[in-house]
């Protein structure tokens, strides 16, 4: 028995970064907005209480803030010859849960993608010829770097990013990233105080002619008041960012940048612990009527709405589209269908350098406190003589020195016992790590669809992930590992260890929660699920906001681009869509 509720102007599925941004913008427009959030309400003082927020066992090992697989999981396989099996524990990636979403427990690296990332197919074809990307399914985004700039700026000022501009209106800035696109102004906050390991790393890079700069960080370098009037506190460098909520209002999240204002608005409401089962379409399937959701008692509700915004985690956005019949599910055999297409990830690798005579005090840290070298990222370097496209940011960002997880040891050390204990004592203070955050480019055979066998607790099919690292990306990662090895040698130390990325993606060890694609943006409705304003081609009163819209992933963390796309979608809804609701903003 489904209870039919009073109509709302807008219903938002998921109250994380994008849901909060859209809710704030559209309530400012005067619309009556409801957000439906699967997980619980989360608030700094009660949920990230200073007295227990840094409980490594609870939050990092037992992953208290994350989505539990019993609520929703997916099946995985490396290629179509295999039978996918359910991930019964999340490992390689850890989706968020509850108000604030994964934005609660991120590290805070906040990047801008470049124009060469957005116009990637055009750019690579022009520069290296179509044959170079024949094995890939890379696509242009349908936006330019110039078009995205104001929205990046808006997100960075909302979130109080600490950093150093490298290019202001075409003028290269000393100490910033010289490879970035022009920005209209500097970051709202200066870079954080640098710790020892990134300082050494930057010195080594500089001595090699590379261009290190402070990683743009959503950990506050000073007290900051954002454009909504909300104050954030200076980061204490406690080293409990990733997997943790911040107890000090020092890490940007919906909680620390938007919700205090949003929650006081009379035309906004959130219903937590309520899971949207699907979007309900009108007869003919060309418009959405609202959503059906279920609360924790099992009671089902139909929430009518004029506009439906899917603002869940990217993977969940794609699955909700599949379960609702919005767009056609991608088929890798025919190449037809758009939902589930161009699933991408992140191609990472890491290096450790062991010293005898250094003390890095690794417990003085923050999630995005470090230095980055972008000389080998994206298309910043010439791939003419190389056998791959793409690249990686090389990051020395020692995010923490937490006692359970931080146990670096020399290769060959026993995994347990007194020799291991002795080695961890020696290694804890004196090991420097850095890593490559590599691009992940789409192929025809990396995709998402619905699993034919496994179902969730409501009897709906799980989503199936078919993914392995493309050969192009492995070649890219190896090239980056060679470059990182050069940096390791320059750093000195008694020994170093390079962990190279290999084919055969393994869903068990943690790698990255940068799952992208599945509902990608673009200019061609045959190849993309949403237009460049993230409006569904098939059901125009549905917008799908998040990293699900990335046609492929760059060598950077996605949150900055997710935030900018959310602001761009909000702008399009406010200033274009509402003039003629229900109509497509781009003619197919």
């Amino acid at each position, binding site marked *: 028995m489904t209870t039919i509720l009073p109509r709302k102007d807008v219903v938002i599925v998921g109250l994380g970064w994008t849901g909060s941004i859209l809710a704030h913008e559209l309530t400012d427009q005067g619309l009556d907005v409801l957000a439906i959030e699967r997980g619980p309400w989360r608030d700094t003082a*009660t949920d990230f209480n*200073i*007295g227990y927020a840094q409980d490594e066992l609870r939050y990092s090992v037992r992953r208290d803030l994350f989505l539990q697989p019993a609520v929703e999981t997916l099946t995985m396989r490396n290629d179509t010859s295999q039978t996918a099996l359910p991930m019964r524990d999340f490992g390689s990636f850890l989706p968020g849960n509850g108000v604030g979403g994964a934005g609660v427990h991120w590290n805070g690296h906040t990047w801008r993608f470049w124009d060469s990332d957005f116009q990637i197919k055009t750019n690579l074809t022009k520069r290296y010829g179509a044959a170079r990307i024949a094995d890939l399914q890379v696509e242009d985004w349908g936006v330019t770097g110039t078009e995205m700039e104001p929205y990046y700026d808006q997100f960075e000022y909302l979130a109080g990013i600490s950093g150093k501009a490298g290019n202001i209106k075409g003028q290269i800035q000393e100490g910033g990233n010289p490879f970035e696109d022009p920005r209209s102004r500097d970051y709202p906050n200066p870079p954080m105080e640098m710790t020892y390991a990134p300082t050494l790393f930057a010195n080594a890079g500089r001595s090699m002619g590379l261009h290190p700069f402070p990683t743009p960080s959503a950990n506050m370098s000073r007290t900051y008041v954002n454009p909504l009037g909300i*104050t954030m*506190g200076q980061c204490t460098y406690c080293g409990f960012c990733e997997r943790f909520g911040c107890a000090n209002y020092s890490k940007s999240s919906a909680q620390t940048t938007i919700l*205090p204002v949003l929650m*006081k608005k009379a035309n906004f409401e959130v219903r937590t612990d309520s899971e949207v089962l699907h979007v309900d379409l009108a007869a003919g399937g060309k418009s959405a009527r609202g959503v059906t959701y279920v609360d924790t008692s099992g009671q089902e509700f139909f929430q009518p709405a004029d506009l439906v915004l899917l603002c869940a985690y990217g993977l969940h956005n794609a699955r909700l589209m599949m379960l609702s019949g919005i767009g056609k599910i991608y088929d890798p055999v025919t190449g037809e269908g758009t939902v589930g297409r161009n699933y991408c990830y992140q191609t990472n690798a890491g290096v450790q350098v062991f010293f005898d005579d250094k003390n890095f005090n690794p417990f003085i840290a923050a999630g995005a406190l470090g230095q980055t070298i972008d000389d080998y990222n994206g298309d910043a370097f010439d791939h003419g003589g190389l056998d791959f496209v793409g690249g990686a940011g090389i990051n020395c960002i020692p995010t923490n020195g937490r006692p359970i997880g931080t146990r670096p040891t020399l290769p060959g050390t026993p995994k347990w016992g007194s020799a291991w204990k002795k080695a961890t004592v020696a290694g804890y203070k004196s090991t420097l790590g850095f890593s490559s955050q590599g691009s992940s480019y789409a192929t025809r055979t990396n995709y998402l669809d619905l699993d034919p066998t496994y179902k969730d607790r409501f009897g709906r099919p799980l989503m199936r992930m078919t993914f392995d690292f493309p050969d192009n990306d492995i070649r890219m990662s190896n090239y980056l590992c060679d470059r990182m090895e050069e940096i390791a040698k320059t750093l000195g130390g008694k020994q170093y260890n390079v962990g190279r990325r290999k084919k055969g993606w393994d869903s068990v060890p943690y790698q990255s929660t940068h799952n992208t694609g599945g509902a990608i943006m673009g200019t061609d409705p045959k190849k993309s699920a949403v237009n460049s304003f993230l409006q569904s081609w098939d059901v125009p009163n549905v917008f799908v906001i998040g990293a699900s819209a990335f046609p492929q992933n760059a060598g950077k963390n996605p949150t900055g681009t997710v935030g900018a796309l959310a602001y761009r979608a909000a702008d399009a809804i406010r200033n274009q869509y509402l003039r003629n609701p229900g109509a497509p903003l781009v003619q197919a």
Partner: protein
Amino acid sequence: MKALAASLYASAALLAITPALAADQADQIIRGQYQAVLGDCAGCHTRPGGKPLAGGLPLETPFGALVPPNITPDHETGIGNWSEIDFRNMMKTGVGHDGVRLYPAMPYPAYTRMTEQDISDLWAYLTTVEPVSNKVEVNQLPFPLNIRLSMWGWNLLNFTEASFEADPSKSAEWNRGAYIVQGAGHCGTCHTPKSFLGADQDSSFLQGASLQGWFAPDITNNAQSGLGRWSQEDVVAYLKAGVNAHSIASGPMAEAIENSTSKMTDPDLKAVAVYLKSLGSDTGNAQAPKPDAARMVAGEAIYHDNCSACHGGDGAGAGALFPTLAGNSIVAQGNPETLARVVLAGSQAVHTAGAPTTPSMPSLAWRLKDQEIADVLTYVRGSWGNSAPAVSSEDIAAVRKELVP
């Protein structure tokens, strides 16, 4: 003239309203709405999230619970059957429609100083509020206090109908401030200590009082416990935004700021500041005895482990987010009740347009023992220029018992 205006208004509903009359009436309603802001009617008479003025949450008085009634114009459950004269008499004397005697939880001992015009305006406004049917059982006091006639005796002992007496030797601004503070603003209802009968002790006017589990601080110009170290602009900023360099409002004052003072006009806030800054003598040199050194050492260690991440190693805090503890007026009160409460139960800061962040102090009741809280508060009260008396574990235990009966 006033009577004429009132009778014109009373008949306006029956007659065709001329444009001029409608404009006058609209002006009066707008003025009355501002009186409702000054008087913070909503603070007591509106339940959080509830319909405006349709009845509030129980007030826990030392004598028992009283529930603020429905004051919308609903005929059955509100004040729809009252006349303007009934309302005027209630505000002036505490005796309402049909001779019902109010309890002084309704601050008629302050409202009695309001002018006839302001009361008339307020009435005009209240008649325009949406009528809401909501029956409120006001009187939940024990015998014999539940007999309203007992208030006859209370009034005899404690109450005199009065009008505000302007002091011609003071500026118009000072007098306006005095009128708001003593009258509609009813600041003394919380901030003035009470006799055992619950009446204001006029000799200690606004020097701080305990009620509903909070200690409403001294708001005279005393340099140690009061506003002596606040500038006039500090007082205005606090009342307008809930935040200034010395404090961030939470608890009952946060509600008063959200509903009332943040909506007052800037000239009125300045007038209030001028008046408060003129009260009391600047007796800031009285130093509490130096606390026991061992307790200071213990308190400092607890402070650095539990408090310094937000409030800073030097107690300086951070702007509108984490209140400074150095020179903080809550820290400086002789009575540590609010301080203990905030550490035990946590507290959320006020929300205003000027300070929308609403940061929260987390509860540390589960983490710190009474003696530890007493030590850390003793340290805070004796550091960075603070010199408030030491806190005992019994002080903390008493508040803990109140919070978890």
